């Protein structure tokens, strides 16, 4: 598994390094990544009954941080999608881009993304899952914003990155909470022993759900996905329909069983979100004229469908959801590639202007029809097999469940019809028909979607081909084997009745599309008054930036004293809050000996005058006075070494100050800094130190280290002055560091001054 991820990273790096040389073959080289994934999938084809391939690499063993891969049947089905769809789309992209547009970086980013996706689905450690998750977010950002000259692409990229990034952060918080409660960061262990429900665990599940909802573009965070259609079509097909948006679904499936066992709101929440997303996405798809946007909203709707099935944690639904996942990857990636080909050849994606492509591009038409049937879940297609399995499971859960999903499926049928007739039917009267180059469809641009379509059709007729993969995947997360069936003909019964009902109503909707349009306008009037996802985001971001400008303008006003004051105030407030909330015992200190009082009052007098005196030689003398008096205090407290050092240092320091100040004016200039705030902050700092000293004084215990030092000084180091022994022996390393600092400070000071003085002397 490491090898597969590594291949992706290396190929991406290679594409970046040799971007000139590889320009012609960028995507063919990039396809090595998905190819490696596919080889891995084929080599482990037979995984089932809970078997898994595990690999582990200790990253930071002390922190229990590791990259741990565990590929079971569930991961394998996602790897199949990533590798299969990836390979097809890379080959398609090779033809889609003309080398003149410099697609090498695009190919590199796509490869990087594919690697992130592979790592994501294979991760067993929550934190490595998060890292790969964010890798996909970043590469998605780069791919959406690939055309960085258009403002729309940039803002769509930012929108997607902010929404999924914020969701990812929430998810990370959830991961940490969950792992701390469960005692393990390994998904396999968390799934085996879910943590008991508590406030923290409940919150963790909420946060994880937010991560999944944003990533998979579920309501109410679905708005970024249609925006992401600003990306070139290969990226849309790969990231925003086949793989990345399924990461959220992957997550709810991975953790769903554990979540359902822990919190009772999970199942209704996931099902509710999925259902609303299905309806909103399907409805919006019916109102689009841009073929790509139509598919995007269709994807939102389909994602809702899979989200509710796979996240529900009910074995039979998970099974059908995984089948739907395979079917969706096949038909949606294909349809995106078809739209890309149409756009490429006809020069437009507006379904009002397109017409008669069935004659000019017959093969493309056939491909589109084949997979569209699967999308609409017409019998004898893979989509139908999957949906039938879903209805079978939903019927067991209750009539309300199946009715809701069937109702939402009506929209799927209707927008599929809109897509097919829009693209290939007659153009709308009054609209200028598209004037494309047409008929110059290259074989490669056709080969990839055609291959996927053929697979889709074959699997539709022989669903037993897909059964082992789906069954192994479902068993890996639910523990139940053969939870559902994939049948070409399910036999008469309630599931078939629901299927036919939604097909019929959907066809009716498609037939009377003018009615839909009128109803849509009516709904639109109401909906325009409701806050929409896009609108909220558009207002939110400038507001946030404006807030940031204002607050940084206020806090960061460029004045050094203000910054220092803010830092000091924070340094005062934080420990004060901590001490006050924990409580502290105070012991009244002794007032002090006479000698201490004499020296102390001297220091106080010197220090206070220092703060206000402006004549610089007075300053030098006062500074020396403070230092000498402090040396006296050290002597009182039994520190002759300190006294000696302090006296000598003070002598040197006074001389140094005198040397420097002789260059400066005789008095310090008055500066514009306000006095009162300075005084207030200064007094606060003083009071804080006084109170802090009282607290610390009461809390101090004699250090054990000191006892050891006193006992070991003569036998170990052969010295009886313990302070010196500590400096040169016990803590010698510290001293070595200290003298290094002294050397650096001296060299720095000399280097700052000497050239300046020499220059002045010369001039």
């Amino acid at each position, binding site marked *: 598994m490491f090898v597969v991820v590594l291949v992706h990273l290396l190929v991406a790096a290679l594409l970046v390094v040799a971007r000139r040389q590889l320009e012609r073959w960028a995507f063919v080289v990039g396809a090595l990544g998905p190819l490696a994934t596919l080889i891995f999938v084929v080599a482990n084809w037979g995984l089932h009954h809970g078997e898994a391939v595990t690999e582990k690499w200790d990253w930071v063993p002390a922190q229990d941080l590791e990259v741990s891969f565990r590929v079971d049947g569930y991961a394998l089905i996602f790897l199949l999608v990533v590798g299969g769809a990836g390979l097809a789309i890379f080959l398609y992209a090779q033809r889609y881009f003309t080398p003149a547009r410099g697609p090498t970086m695009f190919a590199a980013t796509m490869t990087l993304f594919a690697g992130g996706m592979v790592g994501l689905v294979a991760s067993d450690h929550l934190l490595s899952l998060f890292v790969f998750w964010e890798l996909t977010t970043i590469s998605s950002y780069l791919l959406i914003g690939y055309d960085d000259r258009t403002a729309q692409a940039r803002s769509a990229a930012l929108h997607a990155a902010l929404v999924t990034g914020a969701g990812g952060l929430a998810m990370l918080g959830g991961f940490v909470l969950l792992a701390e409660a469960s005692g393990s960061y390994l998904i396999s262990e968390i799934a085996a022993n879910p943590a008991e429900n508590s406030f923290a665990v409940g919150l963790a599940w909420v946060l994880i759900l937010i991560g999944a909802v944003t990533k998979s573009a579920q309501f109410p965070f679905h708005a970024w996905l249609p925006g992401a259609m600003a990306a070139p079509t290969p990226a849309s097909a790969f990231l925003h329909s086949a793989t990345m948006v399924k990461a959220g679904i992957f997550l709810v499936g991975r953790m769903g069983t554990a979540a359902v066992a822990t919190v009772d709101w999970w199942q209704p929440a996931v099902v509710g979100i999925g259902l609303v997303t299905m309806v909103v996405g399907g409805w919006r798809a019916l109102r689009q004229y841009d073929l790509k946007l139509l598919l995007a909203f269709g994807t939102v709707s389909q994602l809702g469908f899979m989200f509710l099935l796979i996240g529900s944690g009910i074995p039979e639904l998970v099974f059908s959801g995984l089948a739907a996942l395979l079917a969706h990857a096949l038909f949606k990636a294909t349809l995106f590639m078809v739209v890309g080909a149409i756009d490429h050849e006809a020069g437009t994606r507006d379904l009002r202007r397109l017409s008669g492509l069935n004659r000019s591009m017959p093969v493309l038409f056939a491909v589109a029809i084949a997979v569209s049937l699967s999308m609409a879940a017409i019998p004898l297609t893979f989509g139908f097999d999957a949906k039938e399995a879903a209805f079978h499971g939903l019927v067991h859960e209750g009539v309300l469940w199946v009715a809701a999903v069937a109702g939402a499926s009506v929209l799927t049928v209707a927008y599929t019809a809109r897509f097919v007739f829009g693209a290939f039917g007659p153009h709308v009267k009054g609209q200028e028909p598209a004037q494309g180059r047409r008929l110059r469809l290259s074989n490669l641009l056709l080969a990839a979607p055609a291959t996927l379509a053929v697979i889709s059709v074959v699997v539709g007729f022989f669903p037993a081909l897909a059964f082992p993969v789906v069954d192994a995947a479902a068993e890996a997360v639910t523990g139940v084997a053969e939870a559902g069936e994939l049948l070409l003909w399910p036999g008469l019964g309630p599931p078939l009745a629901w299927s036919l009902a939604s097909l019929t109503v959907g066809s009716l909707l498609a037939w009377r599309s003018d009615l839909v349009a009128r109803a849509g306008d009516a709904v639109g009037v109401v909906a325009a008054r409701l806050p929409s996802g896009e609108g909220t985001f558009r207002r939110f971001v400038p507001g946030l930036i404006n807030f940031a400008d204002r607050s940084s303008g206020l806090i960061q006003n460029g004045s050094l004293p203000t910054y220092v004051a803010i830092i000091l105030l924070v340094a005062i407030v934080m420990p004060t809050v901590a001490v006050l909330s924990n409580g502290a015992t105070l012991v009244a200190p002794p007032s002090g000996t006479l000698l201490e009082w004499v020296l102390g009052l001297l220091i106080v007098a010197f220090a206070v005058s220092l703060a206000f005196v402006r004549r610089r030689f007075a300053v030098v003398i006062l500074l020396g006075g403070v230092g000498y008096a402090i040396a006296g205090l050290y002597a009182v407290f039994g520190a*002759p*070494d300190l006294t*000696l*050092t302090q006296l*000598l*240092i003070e*002598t*040197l320091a006074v*001389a*140094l100050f005198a*040397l*420097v100040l*002789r*260059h400066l004016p005789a008095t310090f200039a008055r500066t514009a800094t306000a006095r009162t705030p300075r005084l207030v902050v200064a007094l606060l700092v003083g009071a804080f130190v006084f109170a802090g000293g009282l607290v610390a004084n009461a809390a101090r215990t004699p250090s054990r280290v000191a006892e050891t030092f006193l006992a070991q000084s003569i036998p*170990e*180091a*052969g*010295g*009886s*002055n313990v*302070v*010196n*022994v500590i*400096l*040169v*022996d016990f803590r*010698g*390393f510290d*001293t*070595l560091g200290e*003298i*290094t600092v*002294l*050397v650096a*400070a*001296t*060299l720095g*000071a*000399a280097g700052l*001054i*000497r050239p300046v*003085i*020499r220059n*002045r*002397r010369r001039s």
Partner: protein
Amino acid sequence: MRRSRSSPILSAGVVVVSGPLLMFSAYLLFAGHNQPGGGFSGGLVAGVAVLLVWAAGGIDSVRRILPVRSNVLLGAGLSLAALTGFAAFLPGLAFLESGYIKLHPPLVGEIKIVSALFFDIGVYLVVVGMAVGLVKALGEEESAEAPEVGA
């Protein structure tokens, strides 16, 4: 700021004082392991002596008395301290771990040589180098002429 550079009384006084100061500095360095003192205070005493020499005769007399560049002192001190640390590897000890040997030369009695002494000498050299370096850098005159007063 006018200052007498070559006041004969000051010069004479400095000569009288700086000798004992340097001896005191050496005493502090070598006694420091057992009495108050050590490389830091010893080095600082020597630094004060350098300062006095500067006050009496300016930069030039500092250069005359101590013909070593301050950077050499700094480098030598740091290297000596670090080498003492590495030397502990030779007998298989950890970095900077110290040892001592007792010598019994005639007349003097027992002398104990501690490896940490060499480390302290390194500290001493760095501190002296710092004092000399700072005095030289900051004590340099802006004007190239000889000291103005007392010529």
